[in-house]
């Protein structure tokens, strides 16, 4: 009755975008506020 799911620590979206030189474009095009997940007024 106890199960463990290993988690992989992979590349982040930011790292992938930075490697492709797209991070600045994406950051400006899709500005992100972490609070939007908990409060729609930030959407």
């Amino acid at each position, binding site marked *: 009755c*106890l199960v463990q799911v290993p988690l992989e620590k992979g590349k*982040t979206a930011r790292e992938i975008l*930075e490697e492709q030189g797209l991070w600045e474009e994406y950051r400006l095009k899709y500005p992100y506020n972490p609070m*939007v997940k908990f409060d729609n007024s930030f959407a």
Partner: protein
Amino acid sequence: VGTQSMTNDADLAYFGIISIGTPPQSFKVVFDTGSSNLWVPSIYCSSPACNNHDKFNPSLSSTYRQNGASLRIQYGTGSMIGFLGYDTVTVGGFAVQNQIFGLSTSEAPFMQYMRADGILGLAYPRLSASGATPVFDNMMKQGLVSQDLFSVYLSSNSNSGSVVTFGGIDPNHYSGSITWIPLSSELYWQITVDSVTVNGQVVACNGGCQAIVDTGTSLIVGPQSSISNINQVVGAYSQNGNDMVSCNNIGQMPDVTFHIQGQEFTLPSSAYIRQSYYGCHSGFGNGGSSLWILGDVFIRQYYSIFDRGQNRVGLARAA
């Protein structure tokens, strides 16, 4: 149609493998304590984001049943749209029968760059879009877990070690005693923080504040003035919308301490500074709300136990 806000955090790094259907189809998912729905891409989605991920094909599963209801999940920068179905979901060794889940038909462009295919929410059912029963609620209902709790250990090591444990607490992943903190709201994993100090001085959360322990947020997020204070004290400066620090100064930066339930939860600079292609960033981000989010930056330092049975969070120094 039900809606739920979710993450599109560009710094999320941790994911695990689950499978859905018979025979099983595998997916990488973020185990997200800040949301409650399970969803994965489906073959009915042709967005670039879906095309970059594994997709669930219902017709290949003998145990799949359609629900018919639509699902819309709002991101900060777009949305995931889809529909609901039921199937067997295998998480670790547990086969959760008749689990309701979302199959996306459209996804926001940003998802294209996330490693995970989907999200598995671990917050309370009241938060769930379309009233879909969360995976852990079905684990409890179906008697799959001996204790109604799960725990999360996040390792800084990129290769291995991070783990979600369902049904128990793994003493190998923490040292010292566990501080149990009652929830202040049974919607998210929300607790009360008493204050935040640096070198014994209160720099934020004076008089107390509310914080959500969230594996689906990468940073520690707080109100603008509080985060500005902390970043100023640790020597961060703003550059192109990012809070940067000099990589050479990490060793000289002070500890930041969260006071919770009469205990001190201290973060050394090595924990709250992250290095990227562009340099070193502060792990404290502005959320613009009075609410705080204790994300992966915090959870990496403190093994976190999410106790649905007693509606409390347990924190202990990660080992």
